[in-house]
């Protein structure tokens, strides 16, 4: 029954595992099995970045290196990748890597515990953007917490890295050609299937293979980016086996653009989606960069954000407002539905055993329609929404509201349309008086809760005010808070 092995490259060593558990995490494996203890555990939930490593994966004929949080990255998900840890950066001659030397010279470490994670995130940034802007640095570091330095010296170091060496001269670059050929060899299209029962790990060879094996094993847990399922293990100690890892499936990373829609397959990560989002849905750009931190955006997938049905997921509100349609698949059978119908109740979605989210299709916004999304959180970045509201309005030739789609996360047990507000708007002229009338009916749509993120009163008041903001922005009186950086 058992066939194959989980095979990947760790720094410069080939790894082949046949007895790994489905819930084994990369960080524990590095620290406990391999005694590589440079990567640290700060939170075990992917939020602090002390465990950051780079994972190189094949994209076309290139290896792309993503920063990831190894505390919630399953070992079983590493098949066919190149894992680079902090231990690999310093040369065998003891010479510090340019990223490391910049951090030393700019006093970028104090207690040093978060430092390896920062170095890895900065390494990832430097590889793809050797002369980063302050904004790019901040985005790359959104998933790294430091409690000592106040970040200022780390930002100074980040700006200086390229004066210590160019990525073309990266000592680690030389080994990559050999590593690439090894990775290509691992991806031979065959399924890896090891372990039995709850200890079983399945790494399908293709999308069809995945559809088949999941239909046969509907009790299995699907893991794409592991940014949610990872916490089921590290925080709730839930048993998740058997597990099907799908993060590597190229077919699920497809983005298909047509004249009137963009279809994202479920395995597209937030980072991978960003250029397409920016090109076709620029109104989502700011939200996109405020979803979690860089590492989680590199891991988390569009399908995953929808599939598990969280009431505070960041993508459902704007996707619902845009009229997104889901494609669900079981075996060879597919069905389509409007995204808003997928969320039935808290923790309950319209997904049958053995069925999975294959893709989500976003219709392009017709010319002239007004659309915006606003995320409100206690901390501006790398925070879970207190509420997230998406607004879409089209006006007829008389200037009256022809159609309105408004959806919120964080305001109810599921991502939910504001039907009463929409009804109040439709047919009315797009004026402040109309808006104020609509603001008064939010209570009919939402009775939010108070929790550690916000009070019910704040949620309701802010939701109303966001409608007002949307109105102002569509009428040219735009005033939105913006952090001005040099």
């Amino acid at each position, binding site marked *: 029954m058992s066939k194959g092995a989980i095979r990947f490259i760790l720094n410069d060593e080939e790894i082949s595992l046949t007895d790994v558990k489905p819930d084994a995490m990369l960080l*524990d494996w590095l620290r406990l099995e391999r005694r590589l*203890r*440079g990567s*640290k*555990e*700060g*939170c*075990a*939930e992917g*939020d602090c970045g*002390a465990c950051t490593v780079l994972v190189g994966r094949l994209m076309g004929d290139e290896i792309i290196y993503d920063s990831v949080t190894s505390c919630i990255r399953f070992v079983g998900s590493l098949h066919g990748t190149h894992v680079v840890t*902090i*231990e690999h*950066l*310093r040369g065998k001659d003891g010479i*510090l890597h340019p990223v*490391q030397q910049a*951090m*030393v010279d700019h*006093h*970028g*470490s*104090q*207690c*040093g*515990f978060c*430092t*390896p994670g920062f*170095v890895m995130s900065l390494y990832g940034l430097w590889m793809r953007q050797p002369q980063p802007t302050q904004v790019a640095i901040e985005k790359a*570091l*959104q998933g*790294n*917490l*430091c*409690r*000592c*330095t*106040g*970040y*200022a*010296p780390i930002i100074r170091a980040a700006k200086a890295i390229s004066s210590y060496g160019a990525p073309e001269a990266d000592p680690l670059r030389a080994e990559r050609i050999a590593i690439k050929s090894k990775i290509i060899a691992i991806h031979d299209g065959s399924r890896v299937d090891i372990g039995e029962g709850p200890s079983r790990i399945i790494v399908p060879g293709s999308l069809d293979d995945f559809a088949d094996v999941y239909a046969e094993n509907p009790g299995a847990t699907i893991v794409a980016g592991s940014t949610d399922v990872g916490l089921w293990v590290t*925080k709730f*100690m839930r048993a998740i086996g058997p597990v099907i890892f799908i993060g590597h499936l190229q077919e699920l990373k497809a983005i298909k653009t047509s004249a009137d829609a963009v279809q994202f397959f479920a395995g597209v990560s937030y980072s991978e989606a960003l250029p397409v989002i920016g090109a076709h849905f620029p109104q989502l750009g700011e939200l996109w960069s405020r979803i979690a931190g860089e590492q989680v955006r590199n891991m988390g997938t569009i399908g995953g954000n929808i599939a598990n049905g969280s009431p505070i997921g960041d993508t459902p509100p704007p996707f619902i407002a845009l009229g997104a349609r889901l494609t669900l698949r079981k075996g060879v059978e597919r069905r389509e539905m409007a995204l808003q119908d997928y969320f039935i109740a808290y923790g309950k979605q319209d997904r049958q055993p053995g069925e999975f989210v294959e893709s989500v299709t976003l219709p392009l916004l017709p010319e002239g329609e007004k659309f915006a999304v606003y995320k409100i959180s*206690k*901390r*501006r*970045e790398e*925070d*879970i929404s207190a509420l997230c509201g998406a607004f879409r309005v089209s006006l007829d030739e008389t200037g009256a509201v022809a159609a309105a789609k408004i959806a919120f996360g964080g305001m109810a047990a599921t991502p939910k349309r504001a039907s009463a507000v929409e009804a109040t708007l439709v047919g009315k002229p797009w004026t402040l008086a109309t808006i104020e009338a609509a603001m008064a009916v939010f209570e009919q749509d939402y009775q939010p809760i108070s*929790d*550690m*993120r916000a009070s019910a009163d*704040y949620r309701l008041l*802010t939701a109303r*005010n966001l409608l007002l*903001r949307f109105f102002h922005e569509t009428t040219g009186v735009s*005033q939105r*808070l*913006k*952090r001005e950086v040099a």
Partner: protein
Amino acid sequence: MNKHDTSIALATVHTSTRHDSAPKHVSGSAEYIDDMIEPAGTMHAYLALSTKPHAEIVSIDYAAVKASPGVIGVLTAEDIPGENDVSPSHKHDEPIFAIGKVHFWGQPLFAVVAETRDQARRAAHLAKVEYRDLEFVTSVRDAQAAGGKLVTEPLKLERGDVAAGMASASRRVKGSIEIGGQDHFYLEGQIAMAIPGEDEDVTVFASTQHPSEVQLMVAAVLAIRQHAVTVQIRRMGGGFGGKETQGNLFAAVAALAAKKWNRACKIRPDRDDDMTATGKRHDFVVDYDVGYDDSGKIHAVDAVYGARAGFSSDLSGPVTDRALFHADNAYWYPAVRVRSQPLYTNTVSNTAFRGFGGPQGMMAAERWIEDIAYDLGRDPLDIRKANFYGTTTDNVTPYHQTVGDNIIHRIVDELETSADYQARRKAVLAFNAENAILKKGIALTPVKFGISFTATWYNQAGALVHVYKDGSIHLSHGGTEMGQGLYIKVAQVVADAFGVGLDVVKIMATTTGKVPNTSATAASSGSDLNGMAAYDAARQIKERLTAHAAKLYECSEAEVVWVPGGIEAKGKFVGFAELAASGYMNRVQLSAAGFYQTPTIHWDRATGRGHPFYYFAYGASVTEVTIDTLTGEYTVDRVDVLHDVGRSLNPAIDIGQIEGGFVQGMGWLTTEELVWDAKGQLRTKAPSTYKIPLASDVPPIFNVKLAEWSVNAEPTIGRSKAVGEPPFMLAMSVVEALSMAVASVADYKIAPRLNTPVTPERVLMGCERLKREARG
């Protein structure tokens, strides 16, 4: 050589030397306790925590725990040979394992010991615990309403005639401010590993700021003498006060297991459990009554400082004391009465955190300054200046210490100019007049912070310096390294004293076996105390070597001159290594224990009088913010800091403390919110729910300067000043700037009185309240 003449400077002090561990930090090779390769057979312990805030424990059934895979055993109170207590106040009110009752959600009930950490952690959740619920209180107000039970003796400071002062004041303001607590969020959580030795011996590696106290606690718990316990710490992954006492319990559990099973044992809680089961900064509610006149000058202050102490005393006594010691910040109160209430609550026992109550005391002072300013329609900065301590008069604190080194006027004047405060304030007012939705605020706040432990006996330190025959130096002292750069600063002092390079000095891990009876590395005192103790040790060795050289080269001791790299005697240069070797051959003792006690300080708590602080550190900051009055979101746009560290031992390290302290303080006052739910459970207990600042929260313009002209008036090491805590309070200007922005919605006529942390929600609700009140 004069024992207290520490002003000499050679090559390394007063320079921006990098942190000694920096190359290891960036390489992942700096070893923290969890990184040490464990002895074979190391066991792992995990705590089981209560799931009730206040309840009688009816029964605990361990059957499922013991049957869980890998479990070696369960540790309960009955397994403790000595005292089931880790109370640092020695009030015996903080059991390791709860007996009979639990007093907060998250209190340790027992520990599971297993072959792996994962096994221990899973098993710890399997006990069946039956509780009988009791009434509970989690907030300061609830605790006051329930009768105000205290965990330790309150303090009162009084000076002048408060009744007469109030009577003389033409205006009066009464109010209150709620000041939230703060989790330390050290990146490395609590951890300890104990290795049993022969007889009673045990060695404990503990992530602690206070190895000597861990030693004492472990000895008391095991009912053995302190000499059998060795506690060692090379470095912590952050402390901030959270490892002053909170590591004691973990070290004790590891040591208990190690001795019981005669195997090494490690304990490391998950982040959620760490945040649930360990103490934090105290929340305060300060109720105040302030009399002042039409010019804004304060006549009298009468205030009560209620603090959420949690279920036990821990350090709540000295923390609430320090809040009162900083009730003045930099302000002269002609008459003052301030009282503390360290309140019992059914929450985790709160503890030390950078500033140690001082920040809360100072935040309250800034609040009534703001009240006065909005009442009089003045810039709060004018009110601040009008009330600053004088330099020769009006300079006695509420605890009757004369402020003799006041430089706040110069600091504030220079910052006001360098930050272009007046012009920018005008621009902010103009912006607000023109913009309906976005509003700006700007504020300048001062800091004056007292340096010394108020527990006077803590103000001592020891060091041990060895010089080997090859001239290499081995440096130990009682201070611990948590990232603040103490080790490098002390090494600079020693290298400087001997005139050698830093590479000659090996910085040793801190261990109770090298330097005994040490104080916590806390109260910003690390460099002051340990730098001086190490200097004293170096001085002794130098004196012996000087005498030896005089004899060897047949000259007077005065003719032996210490120069970079060695000495000159009668015109001849002798390298330090050669000198050490010849010293050895001539039987000169090349090792010395150094010692230091802070002079001049004294404090009588019973009368509330004394001179508890050796000196004061000063600073000031200007912050500009923009708020969004539709959502309450805001940005901190620019910060300018001028801060006093005396003559800096290491400007790069000190700037790092100021930048880091400011941002940590900003987190405390803005996004770091501790929320307990109706069941008494802390709901913000992981980075997903508890939000410390990110890189993108750092002000895009962040100018930090040292007051380079400042020299400590007292003969501290190199005439430097402490830097650990004082910069933390610079972040108060963020609150005051946010207040101004909120006040703009009511034309600056109503004091906004925002409670902290000033979350976006509080900003929006503040705007709404002011708009309502302005409408009448």
